[in-house]
């Protein structure tokens, strides 16, 4: 597929990286910053065009004439929308995705009209087939993490009916020190499946007799309502979170505060800039907005950091996030999370004193990837900082093919790929070795190694 990405910011770069990694995609990136593009082109096999993303001239240079998809990810909503409209009106580009940051726009979905497969007609809105809001998805993601104390990652499949949760197993959990199959005796009426276990950075095959050890990183899938019960298997049950400190009142911090105060959490928000602090304090209801430095020890002690359930460092600077989270942890915050963009930092920190390293780009990229691979792939989530992937895909073909009509154990999957759940209509079936795949099933897979994505896709298409 020929894809044009507009904007080489954090999100644009990550999207380019993930999309270009798949052999079938030809990616062209457009940005105004020449230097940024040069650097990007040295790292990934893409073409770059320098210019204003919404200008017809730039889009033509970037090959909009025969592009299949345009993904507008610049930091300006207006530019993104106009670029999509220009691509549609002048070049008839089939798929147009825009990043919309302002809620004032994204809440009025009638502004955006999907034109896919339609002939050019008078539209009643902008020709945008899908819009993504990275800030919104990251906020929702952090919100889920806060709701499940102990979780490292929580992602939804099958329209939110099942959830894949990653967490660190801790002594005190019922299953820790026991083989996986014991879970059936502990909670007989809950159907859950362990998708993967990482021990010391390496993947361990989760068979029935694999023993879960202290400090293992475990991924399991279960119906959304059962998640708490299963989590109790892996670590001592924890009280629901009540008191949250947010460092950084930017887009994400502000939205998170809004969400949390709706659920009656006690939220404190630390913001460095007096003007911004004043602005958000006007829009928030019960949150206490503090003007100061999140890495200021005196301020944290003053605000009783030692009795806080969660400390979230969400500023623009990842170094500041890491340091303030470390400080908060040392001062006694129960659980600390930090927004960390660089995968290398995230790896460094997550196994150490920081409980959860949130990598915003892996959260955002999921919905984009699913849209690009569309047709058969319903949902994609990047896991473990982008090295692994959770994927929901539709099984096609007739009986006797490579997938349909076969038992799970007979399907030849690439190394590290595992079928964990099958969704058949309304029914959610945890996959066992003898589960038979039917045509039209939604199959949820865990891929320990992302490089095998295409192989899996091909398998399910045939």
């Amino acid at each position: 597929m020929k894809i044009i990405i507009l904007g080489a910011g954090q999100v644009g770069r990550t999207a380019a990286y993930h999309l270009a990694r798949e052999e079938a995609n030809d990616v062209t990136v457009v940005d105004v910053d020449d230097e940024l593009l040069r650097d990007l082109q040295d790292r990934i096999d893409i073409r770059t065009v320098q210019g204003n993303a919404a200008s017809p001239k730039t889009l033509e240079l970037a090959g909009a004439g025969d592009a299949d998809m345009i993904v507008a990810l610049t930091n300006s909503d207006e530019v993104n929308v106009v670029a999509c409209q220009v691509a549609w009106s002048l070049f008839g580009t089939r798929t147009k995705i825009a990043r919309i940051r302002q809620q004032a726009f994204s809440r009025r979905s009638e502004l955006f009209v999907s034109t896919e497969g339609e002939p050019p007609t008078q539209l009643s809105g902008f020709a945008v087939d899908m819009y993504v809001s990275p800030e919104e998805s990251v906020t929702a993601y952090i919100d889920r993490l806060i709701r499940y104390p102990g979780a490292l990652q929580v992602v939804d499949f099958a329209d939110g009916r099942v959830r894949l949760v990653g967490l660190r197993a801790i002594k005190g959990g019922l299953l820790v020190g026991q083989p996986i199959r014991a879970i059936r005796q502990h909670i007989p009426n809950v159907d859950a499946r362990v998708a993967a276990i990482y021990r010391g950075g390496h993947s361990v095959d989760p068979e029935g007799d694999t023993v879960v050890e202290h400090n293992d990183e475990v991924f399991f899938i279960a119906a959304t309502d059962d998640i708490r019960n299963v989590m109790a298997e892996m670590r001592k049950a924890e009280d629901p979170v009540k008191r949250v400190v947010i460092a950084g009142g930017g887009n994400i911090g502000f939205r998170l505060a809004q969400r949390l105060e709706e659920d009656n959490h006690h939220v404190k928000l630390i913001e460095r800039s007096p003007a911004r602090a004043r602005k958000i304090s006007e829009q928030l209801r019960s949150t206490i907005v503090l003007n100061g430095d999140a890495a200021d020890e005196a301020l944290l002690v003053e605000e009783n950091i030692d009795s806080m359930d969660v400390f979230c460092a969400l500023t623009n600077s990842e170094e500041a996030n890491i340091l303030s989270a470390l400080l908060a942890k040392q001062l006694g915050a129960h659980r600390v999370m930090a927004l960390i963009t660089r995968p290398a930092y995230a790896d460094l920190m997550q196994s150490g004193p920081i409980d959860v390293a949130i990598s915003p780009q892996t959260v955002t990229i999921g919905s984009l990837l699913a849209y690009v691979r569309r047709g058969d792939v319903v949902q994609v989530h990047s896991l473990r900082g982008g090295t692994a992937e959770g994927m929901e895909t539709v099984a096609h073909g007739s009986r006797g093919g490579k997938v349909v009509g076969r038992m799970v154990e007979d399907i030849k999957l690439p190394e590290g790929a595992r079928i964990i759940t099958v969704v058949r209509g309304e029914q959610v079936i945890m996959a066992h070795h003898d589960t038979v795949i039917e045509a039209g099933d939604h199959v949820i897979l865990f891929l320990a190694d992302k490089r095998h994505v295409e192989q899996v896709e091909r398998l399910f298409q045939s």
Partner: protein
Amino acid sequence: MLAVVHVLGSMLMLFSVTYSLPMATSLIYADGLLVDYVAGALICLSMGGLLWILTRPHKRELRSRDGFLLVSLAWVLMSAIASVPLMLALPGLSFTDAFFEAMSGLSTTGATVLVGLDDLAPSVNMWRGALHWFGGMGIIVLVVAILPMLGVGGMQLYKAETPGPVKNDKLTPRITQTAKALWIVYILITVACILALRVAGMGWFDAVFYSFSTLALGGFATRDASVGYYDSVSIEIVLIVFMLIAGLNFSRHFVAWQQKSLRAYATDAEAKAMLALIVISTLAVSLFIWQQGVYGSFWTSLRHTSFNLVALAMTCGFVTQDYAVWPIFAPMVMLMLSCYSCNTGSTGGGIKMFRTLVLFRQAGRELLLLVHPQAVQPVKIAGQVVQNQIVFAVLAFVVLYFGAVVVLTFALLASGLDFMSSFTAIIATINNAGPGLGVVGPASNYQSLTDFQTWVCALAMLLGRLEIFSFLVLLTPAFWRK
């Protein structure tokens, strides 16, 4: 380091395929040399295979510094291996001479140490033509087109081999496709050239050989008298046209082909500057030698000037007349043109027209700043701003280029060669043009040089083909520091 050798192994294995051209020729003409090429191909294949297998555990994605090492290694090693069949087929040819001939072929210089080309076996000539042709668009570019597994590493390789100061202009998102596109255009134009030469009166074998030599802007010939042997105006016209085409940027050809229009050339400042320079200097030199009474009529001098001037300016180096006997002004102008005329992304050598334009605009800017010290004046070419970084890179290149010319000329002078021969030999080899003046003039060749002088010239060809930076970076201590 070992990862580089791993890729090098696969390149050598691929290179062994090129031996099929002389093999086929040898079969058709039954010249009894088949076994030499089979031996050469097997040596190449087994050496590549061995390197490939031994270094398999070290396989990894190439980094940008690997590109330079790989490209330089590949060019030296391929020239060495390509000299094997020459030594086998021509007993008595020393390794020095065979290496020079092979390097001259691959780097598309076209300077030869062989005499009696007319009596050479057809397969030997075909091998020389094939070396030109593969070296022209670039062996590495071909490898990048064929081996997709190189990924981003492919871009590093491409940048290390392709001439020109601006290398980030990809035609297509994937580097493999860009490399493929360039090769396809190259092949199509070659075929057109073969047909045109056939129509103009050449035999099939010569048509193929001269097309290879022309499109690569090489200059090897199948006759000691070079193109002068045919003494045919139509052949000369066909060759002039295709030499000019090969001296343009192949990306432009690709765009023009894609858009099915000539608009792409109209916006190309480099192409326009090159054509203007060629036309003006051709007219001036023709008038000059006519005035000096070298030829009786203006038309004769125009005919001989246009062919020899274009051939030298495009760094091809075909010859129809012994222009060394013309008043020295004329051959010197032609030799100097070889430094500047070819376009970025062409198969020719030299400083390239783009760099020349940048230098002139930069000089103009400095002059303007003397008059208006506060002026803001970016360097522009065809309305496009050239980043300062590129201007600096161009300046550095030109300094290194002339530095290399001076140092290598002194090396030849120290070895006892006269000044005219030394200077022109270095200019002709570093520009990958071919004939110089003096003992290496158009009527003679590089046969008379000593071994040492031959190696110096071979080095100049390599430097010129890899545009100095790619090779010179290997000599910096920083490159080897861990």
